[in-house]
């Protein structure tokens, strides 16, 4: 019996480094990529901080895992929904975030943005379509 593909939603609501949730949830996403499901990541509340560019942990002696987000495109994880209101409430714009891209093999390997800026209302609709929600 074959299983149909499910829509997996990974909910990211916490800042990086203060707790391990951001990093360990990314580890789930990477392993999950091998299972060929339809994956989306949602970044809201403090989760938007995970994508901020210029993270430098050299003085805090914690592993800097921010470059792992850049690899997501290679794992076919291309839908990173960032909630607009959460960014604004934290004084951030898209320009503050890492430029995350993926290469679309169906479009002559054109480089496309993985970060999709959405409003709360749009993200609520996107969440409504998902089959399985992971929270960390």
């Amino acid at each position, binding site marked *: 019996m074959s299983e149909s593909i*499910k829509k*997996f939603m990974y909910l990211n609501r916490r800042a990086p480094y203060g707790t391990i949730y951001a990093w*360990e949830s990314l580890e789930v996403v990477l392993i*999950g990529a091998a299972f060929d*499901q339809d994956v989306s990541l949602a970044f809201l509340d403090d989760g938007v901080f995970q994508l901020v560019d210029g993270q430098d942990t050299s003085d805090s002696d914690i592993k800097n895992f921010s470059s792992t987000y850049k690899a997501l495109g290679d794992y076919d994880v291309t839908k990173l929904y960032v909630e607009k209101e959460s960014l604004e409430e934290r004084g951030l714009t898209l320009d503050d975030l890492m430029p995350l891209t993926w290469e679309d093999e169906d479009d002559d390997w054109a480089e496309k943005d993985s970060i999709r800026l959405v409003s709360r209302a749009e993200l609520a609709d996107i969440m409504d379509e998902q089959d399985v929600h*992971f*929270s960390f």
Partner: protein
Amino acid sequence: MKFAIQVNEGPYQHQATDSAYHFTKAALAAGHEVMRVFFYHDGVNNGTCLTTPPQDDRNIVNRWSELAKAHDLDLVVCVAAAQRRGIVDEGEMQRNSKSAQNIADGFRISGLGQLIEAGVQSDRLVVFGD
């Protein structure tokens, strides 16, 4: 209905594992299947055999072990999270040259693929965290 449970926090520190336990028990009592309970983040600490809680309080680890035994539950502790926090079985003890193992009865250490598989195969994933 086939349930999969994810537990993100350790025993006593947060109520998450208590809630997960009571939910699991109720689901089984209602005739549902609980295909796996996956322990992640500090949740792996539910799998140590070395706790000695006070006599007048619930024994969280033993409670999970007993439920697993009674219902043939699959209690899985994530290997990466377990390595970070020192939950060790025979295999991990040998592989990482540790002086002891401490995995509790009924728990097994395995990879994150078990969580993803649970998400794929179950009808409902229920996450308990903080």
